[in-house]
């Protein structure tokens, strides 16, 4: 028979699409799904608005990120529950309706039947996914999400859909009865969604240790979140992720697997996607055998060869993908141990550093209007400038090799200090970038520090951060932070933390991190710049929330991750002591204030945080440093006090508005022994 080339559409696809898209049903379902997604995102939008009113974080990108991650999650759930339904009846349905034999009596290849069924069923699910893309694109209005994130989430959704589709169709071909196939497919979905998390928790509970991340690899939710969250957990991602995590009923860190906080590991989805691909391939090949009416396991060498080639191609593609991204993830990352800090002899002073309006950044073009300020632990005045710089570098010192995005990696590398003159700064090629700056001055007025973050205006993948310390009267200028980072869904900005008493060091945090839903914002790691030579040392890696340095600068108090409570870390030995903070309810802790003599701490517990008001009530605890004994100074008070200072031995300063912006705060005293609250009298 002479070969006549002509476009031949798989008959099964034609037939399936004809009947599936006939009438109103398909469109009603599509409309319903979109309405559901729309309603859910609107509700979430209101929720985000309600919770973020009380944080000082930039609002708009947070809304965008939260909406996006929620939409992606909802779509994933939709996919997980729709896909098995549309595919698990594909083959068994034909068998049950007694149409299968007629189909098999035709010269149509059984594999074509399978393929046709799969494509037509999946194209319907894809329609649901892609119909939501324009709606998901609305998050670009808010910003905070790059098209890359959207592509990543779509790729994951599509791969998960294809896998679940193949699982459904395999069950259908294997079991022959739609009911059984459907039940088993859903069991597989539930197993993928629940069992990794369950095993993870069980492991953690039994071993009392951080479980290995790979347990979570099969979980599609973990894969999705690992793609959308920054590579380091508890990175500067907006607090609302965490809030969202609570809303969705689980700690996101649990879903994405936290990994070691000091190394940059591959996101989980790098493993999940190949796993899904392999499962898809194997089940599909098995299903092509199962649909055959006769000669099921009579495999011709040609078919075996095709399967082998498919496996090799797949393995090769995965290997190439891993190899090409190897240097981004597998390069050794910096893991420094706490460095002994010399004991200074000076005593307490106010932690809050005075703030200076930043010197104007070199702006070739006109600066545009300021946007909302970034959170700074030092309550510094921030200034936002959008500028477009010429493409070429400016100034003779702009020769640092780490400044082009092409060479960047997610690895956080502590940059060697550069000493430059007061001549034009080594600002990298920051064309088409939105810049934000903030600054503060040392208590003795000798030094000022300026932070800068530059976002690509086109929403691209990498952003730039800088922390520069300058002598106010001299020419010394140290680059403490000078790095490009991958822009996941969130970003981090280096923040000045504390000027040492002896005037030798500036402590700063590179990973300011909100807790829970952004109730308390402070650093999670600690670095310091030696103001004498500009060298940067990591004092501690990201440890927890609300780092607070003792007056003698030898002990660090913070709220540990994983519900560790209050942790006291000796910076000389690295030894830690901890005490649980358990008010018996959902809580967030922070605002750790040391007593002037360093023998006690007070801290604020927000009870049932993340509600419309930032918390339902507030407790103030006093903890003895020596014994870790806890005293409740204020018990669940509705006035929402926050501990802000401890100037004299018996009086702790409280503010009742510190977290509620825009309103005048009222200050109060609380007696550090009796807990008696009095009006602030100066």
């Amino acid at each position, binding site marked *: 028979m002479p070969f006549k080339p*002509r476009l031949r559409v798989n008959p099964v696809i034609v037939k399936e699409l004809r*009947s599936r898209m006939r009438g109103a049903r398909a469109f009603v379902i599509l409309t319903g799904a979109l309405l559901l997604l729309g309603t859910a995102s609107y509700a979430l939008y209101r929720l985000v608005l309600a919770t973020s009113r009380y944080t000082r974080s930039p609002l708009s990108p947070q809304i965008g990120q939260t909406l996006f991650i929620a939409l992606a999650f909802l779509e994933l759930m939709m996919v997980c529950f729709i896909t098995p339904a549309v595919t698990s009846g594909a083959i068994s349905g034909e068998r049950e309706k007694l149409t299968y034999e*007629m189909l098999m009596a*035709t010269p149509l*290849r059984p594999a074509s039947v399978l393929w046709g069924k799969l494509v037509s069923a999946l194209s319907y699910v894809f329609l649901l996914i892609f119909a939501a893309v324009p709606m998901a694109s609305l998050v670009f209005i808010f910003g905070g999400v790059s098209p890359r994130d959207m592509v990543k989430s779509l790729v994951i959704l599509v791969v998960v859909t294809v896998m679940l589709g193949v699982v459904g169709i395999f069950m259908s071909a294997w079991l022959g009865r739609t009911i059984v196939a459907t039940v088993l497919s859903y069991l597989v979905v539930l197993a993928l969604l629940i069992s990794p998390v369950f095993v993870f928790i069980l492991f953690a509970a039994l071993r009392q240790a951080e479980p290995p991340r790979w347990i979570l690899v099969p979980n599609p939710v973990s894969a999705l979140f690992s793609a959308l969250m920054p590579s380091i957990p508890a990175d500067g991602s907006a607090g609302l992720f965490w809030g969202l995590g609570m809303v969705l009923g689980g700690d996101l860190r649990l879903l994405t697997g936290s990994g070691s906080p000091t190394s940059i590991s591959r996101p989980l989805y790098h493993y999940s996607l190949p796993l899904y691909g392999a499962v898809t391939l194997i089940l599909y090949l098995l299903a092509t055998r199962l649909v055959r009416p*006769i000669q099921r396991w009579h495999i011709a060498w040609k078919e075996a060869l095709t399967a082998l080639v498919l496996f090799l191609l797949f393995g090769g593609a995965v290997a190439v993908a891993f190899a090409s991204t190897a240097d981004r993830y597998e390069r050794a990352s910096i893991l420094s141990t706490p460095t002994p800090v010399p004991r200074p002899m000076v005593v307490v002073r106010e932690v809050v550093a005075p703030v200076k309006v930043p010197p104007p950044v070199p702006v070739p073009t006109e600066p545009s209007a300021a946007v909302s300020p970034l959170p700074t632990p030092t309550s510094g005045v921030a200034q936002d400038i959008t500028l477009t710089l010429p493409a070429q570098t400016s100034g003779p010192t702009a020769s640092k090799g780490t400044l082009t995005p092409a060479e960047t990696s997610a690895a956080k590398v502590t940059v060697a200090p550069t000493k430059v003159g007061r001549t034009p700064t080594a600002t990298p090629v920051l064309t088409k970038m939105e810049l934000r700056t903030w600054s503060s001055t040392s208590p003795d007025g000798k030094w000022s520090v300026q932070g800068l973050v530059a976002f690509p205006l086109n929403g691209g993948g990498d952003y730039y951060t800088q922390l520069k310390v300058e002598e106010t009267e001299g020419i010394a200028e140290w680059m403490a932070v000078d790095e490009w980072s991958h822009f996941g869904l969130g970003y981090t900005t280096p923040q000045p933390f504390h000027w040492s008493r002896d005037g030798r060091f500036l402590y700063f945090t590179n990973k300011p991190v909100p807790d829970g839903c952004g109730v308390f914002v402070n650093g999670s790691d600690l670095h310091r710049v030696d103001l004498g030579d500009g060298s940067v040392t990591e004092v501690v890696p990201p440890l927890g929330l609300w780092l607070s340095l003792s007056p003698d600068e030898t002990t660090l108090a913070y709220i540990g991750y994983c519900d560790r409570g209050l942790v006291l870390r000796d910076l000389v030995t690295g030894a830690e002591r901890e005490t649980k903070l358990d008010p018996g309810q959902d809580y967030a802790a922070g605002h750790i204030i040391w007593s002037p003599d360093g023998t006690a701490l007070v801290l604020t517990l927000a009870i049932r945080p993340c509600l419309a008001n930032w918390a339902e009530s507030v407790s103030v605890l006093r903890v003895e440093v020596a014994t870790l004994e806890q005293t409740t100074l204020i018990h669940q008070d509705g006035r929402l006090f926050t501990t802000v200072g401890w100037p004299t031995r018996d009086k702790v300063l409280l503010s009742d508005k510190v977290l509620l912006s825009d309103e005048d705060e009222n200050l109060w005293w609380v007696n550090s022994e009796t807990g008696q609250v009095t009006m602030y009298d100066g």
Partner: protein
Amino acid sequence: MIAIETRGLTRRFGKVTAVENLSLQVPAGALYGLIGPNGAGKTTTLRMLAGLLEPTAGEIALNSQVAGHDWRELRRQIGYMPDFFGVYEDMLVWEYLDFFGRCYDLPPDHRQQVTDELLDLVDLTEKRDAYVQTLSRGMRQRLCLAHALVHDPQVLLLDEPASGLDPRARVEVRELLRELGAMGKTIVVSSHILAELAELCDSVGIIEKGRLVASGSLDEISRHVQQGRTLRLKVLSDRGEAEATLRHQSGVGEVYEVNGFLEVEFLGDDEATALLLATLVACGVKVVSFSEVSSDLEEVFLRLTKGEVA
């Protein structure tokens, strides 16, 4: 020329043997009836012939081509209509035929033509744009028959095409088969009702418990079976004496008494029959009537299948 030939075809389902050592030959252009009681193995045989069921042993040849790994190509020569079948929901009648046209890889213009011709053939033209699930049972049966014809196969395998139809619809199906037979197609049609096939088929195979008990034209089969004939006689004198006399004659088998008649199973030709009568009379048996019980196909069938017809 032999269109379908099976050699030692056997199929077992676990311990049950559905078809055992079945060897049959269907000449090209023949209308072959496969007759047997329910569960005799007709459907199993047809499914194996259509390449839907793997034989446990034995082989199948279509137009002298032995079916092996190339079943897919052989399927183009076969039209198969199962005994029980479903129809796709949400599908129009023309789309149904169009779909199978696509399955057989017909070019688009040809597909349209074939669809219209077949709808005309099975008298469903006015139902062209109706949904398949709205058709009556008879119409569905005809549509299913039409689907087996889209690729103009030389061999048609029809499993109980008239089952569940009212008498009028049966006649229609029969007419259709006659028409198709006239087109020169080789048709294998199965039924558990002999009369349905008796006047239609050139040759029949009678299948019982998975075994082919007889095969050939109806005349051949009848003759084969009717070498033993049944004689019915009425005697005036003592029946016991008459029976005893009969039993002494050669060729006489069982003797029964039915409604005052004696029925005799007798093996012999007409000559021998005449001689038997003469002998009876000579022995003093008073014969009032003597006749041969005419055996129709149904009886042949019953005899062959040992009365186990459902």
